[in-house]
């Protein structure tokens, strides 16, 4: 499947097809998670007719993978009507929910809609920890009840476990819980800034040592820790950097908010247009902001193009970089991840600490003895 998927993605990239879209139906939510980046007040959501029209436009534009998220998607009274319409248009639908509002009837309807998967947010196997994060008493019990109803019906459920300081120690418990109820498990060790740019919630991020632990836990990786945490092989050659794209945002993927605003990605709040005034395909093809994002190759990144991680161990998110003030700059959170993963300091870390002249040295030493280099350069920071 991966080969065919890669071929399809390459075709979409070549032809400028928005293969995947995340559509948030609402920012309203029945939980108040401490790390959430959304403003939960309704600022004028698209109505049912507007969303159906948007779905038709997206189907015509070639969108195949449709992630329907929120807020809590079941807060929309027309949720099932919307998903039924989307499935009628033959989208591959993935749902993101906390499952609190999923009872027998809702589980039956979701099963009938045959989503590709349902992702459920679970923060801990301990109610006191999970409920303290969601600020909804009894939420873990309800989320698990909803999950079980879906799993009983053969729906593929994935537990999404965002890690932060308050629940880091519980991830193995959530893994065990997922196995017990028949769900799959995915972990996300990154807290992202609020959509309005407020970065205060980043204080919830786990510590560097904890990140290192996550990246060395073979039960989370799906590959060997040795391979995953191998030191970077050096900066991309210039000709490769010219052709290498930072990520799929604006290339084969975009995000649409409940208010019709279109962004390169859910994590990249650069306004590119609104489907209430401009057709989706016109925003996708002609928005100057979309085109600016898709014009950027690794070669255009002044700091990252020189970084030894750019050849593979970097997971730089241009949206996080944008929220730090420069979409062509490094993302400090991703630099942290690359460092935690490999033990080799990134060019972005060096640049932030005014030690740009040492970047070349990192490359040379990093290929010889990564652990030593990491310690040596850290002492300079």
């Amino acid at each position: 499947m991966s080969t065919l998927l890669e071929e399809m993605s390459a075709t979409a990239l070549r032809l400028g097809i928005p293969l995947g879209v995340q559509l948030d139906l609402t920012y309203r939510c029945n939980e108040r998670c401490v790390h959430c980046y959304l403003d939960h007040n309704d600022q004028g959501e698209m109505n049912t007719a507007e969303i159906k029209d948007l779905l038709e436009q997206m189907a015509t534009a070639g969108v195949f993978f449709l992630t329907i998220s929120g807020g809590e998607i079941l807060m929309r009274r027309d949720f099932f009507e919307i998903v039924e319409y989307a499935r009628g248009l033959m989208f591959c639908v993935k749902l993101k929910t906390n499952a609190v509002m999923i009872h027998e009837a809702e589980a039956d309807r979701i099963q009938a809609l045959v989503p590709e998967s349902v992702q459920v947010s679970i923060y801990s196997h301990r109610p006191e920890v999970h409920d303290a994060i969601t600020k909804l008493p009894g939420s873990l019990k309800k989320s698990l009840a909803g999950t079980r109803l879906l799993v009983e019906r053969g729906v593929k459920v994935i537990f999404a476990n965002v890690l932060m300081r308050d629940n880091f120690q519980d991830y193995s418990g959530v893994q065990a819980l997922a196995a017990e109820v028949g769900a799959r498990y995915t972990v996300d060790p990154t807290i992202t800034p609020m959509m309005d740019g407020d970065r205060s919630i980043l204080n919830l991020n786990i510590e560097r040592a904890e990140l290192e632990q996550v990246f060395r836990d073979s039960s989370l990786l799906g590959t060997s820790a040795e391979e995953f945490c191998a030191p970077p092989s050096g900066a991309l050659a210039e000709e490769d950097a010219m052709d290498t794209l930072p990520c799929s945002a604006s290339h084969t993927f975009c995000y649409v908010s409940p208010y019709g605003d279109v962004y390169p990605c859910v994590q990249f709040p650069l306004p590119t247009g609104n489907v209430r005034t401009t057709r989706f395909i016109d925003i996708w093809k002609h928005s100057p902001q979309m085109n600016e994002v898709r014009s950027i190759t690794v070669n255009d990144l002044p700091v990252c193009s020189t970084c030894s991680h750019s050849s593979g161990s970097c997971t730089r998110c241009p949206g996080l970089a944008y929220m730090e003030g420069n979409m062509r700059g490094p993302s400090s959170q991703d630099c942290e991840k690359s460092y935690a993963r490999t033990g080799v300091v990134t060019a972005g870390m060096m640049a932030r600490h005014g030690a740009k002249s040492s970047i070349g040295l990192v490359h040379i030493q990093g290929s010889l003895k990564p652990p030593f280099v990491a310690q040596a350069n850290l002492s300079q920071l």
Partner: protein
Amino acid sequence: MSHVYVARAKEVAARMVGGELMILSARDSKLFSLNETATLIWEGADGATPLSEIVDQRICGGFEVDRAVAFRDAEEVVEGLAQHGILKVSNLPIEETP
């Protein structure tokens, strides 16, 4: 064969990407790429039109192909798609379609 009806399974997602019909089966998350003949059959698989009519109209009508060969190929395609849960096959018209 004149009594065979085919319908698109509701468990799948589908989209034409670069002129190629891509189908994803939610049953096992497998992705398929359909060739031209299979795409024509998929498009005609409304549950109400007999397979023989789909072949006559969409394949024999558009290509220089021997009718018997076209029918035989179509049966093979349908069997393969049905095995993967992409098409439903019945000797009676199939009412429920996505």
